[in-house]
């Protein structure tokens, strides 16, 4: 708690402090977790409408099949795979492995590359199917 007449900046000052990559990935893990919650809600909407009438499913499918829907789906593959890869990174940390700064930086890059690669491969499979 800062005192009323204390005008010195807090450290780290959030407007000036440059977040290291590992910090960005950490907050990104939570942000993607929230986005993934929206993704599974969409999944239930699609599955529930497939259990209903063709008309109802057609409405849900048209939303998902639009260019905006495809963009959202591509975003969901990125957030799902990112959260998955970073989650595996967390599981290694949980058993005490890879906690050194150099290793954490290395696994950060591996995690980002793996998430991007898995997304691209998934969409190549989708385009080929």
């Amino acid at each position, binding site marked *: 708690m800062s005192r009323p007449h204390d005008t010195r900046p807090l450290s780290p000052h959030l407007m000036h402090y440059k977040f290291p990559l590992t910090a960005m990935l950490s907050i990104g893990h939570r942000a993607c977790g929230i986005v993934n919650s929206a993704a599974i809600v969409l999944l239930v909407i699609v599955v529930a409408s*497939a*259990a209903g009438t063709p008309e109802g*499913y057609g409405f849900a499918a048209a939303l998902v099949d639009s260019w905006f829907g495809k963009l959202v789906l591509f975003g969901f593959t990125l957030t*799902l795979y990112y959260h998955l890869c970073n*989650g595996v990174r967390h599981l290694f940390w949980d058993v005490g492995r890879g906690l050194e700064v150099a290793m954490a930086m290395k696994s950060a890059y591996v995690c980002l590359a793996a998430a991007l690669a898995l997304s691209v491969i998934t969409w190549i499979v989708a385009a080929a199917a």
Partner: protein
Amino acid sequence: MRNLRTPLSEVKGLGSAKEGTGHFWSQRLTAIALVPLVLWLCFSVAALPGMDYLSVREWLSSPFTSIMMVLFIAVAFYHARLGLQSIIEDYVGGHGGRTLAVIGVTFAGAVLAVVGVFSVLRIAFAG
């Protein structure tokens, strides 16, 4: 061994809730289960020849897909509830709002998960 707790703390009864690492452990178990389930879901949806009504229903009605989808929905909603609970507890100030938000996320997740599982089973059994 002598009880090391003070008489006041025993009277207040606010000791350990005996849950300890329960939340942590459930989150990790569901995370491990979701690794194959997410990979399965993404790649099998990507491999579908079409997203039309009949193709999607045919896909969902196969026993393997039904089982994997029910597992995915159940585990994913539980994992999401645990994660959202942690986020709410970290960022929502005020005891009342925080408790209401956790209750809301829990109920919404439970309802959506049951709707999802019921829909899969309806397609699988009722055709």
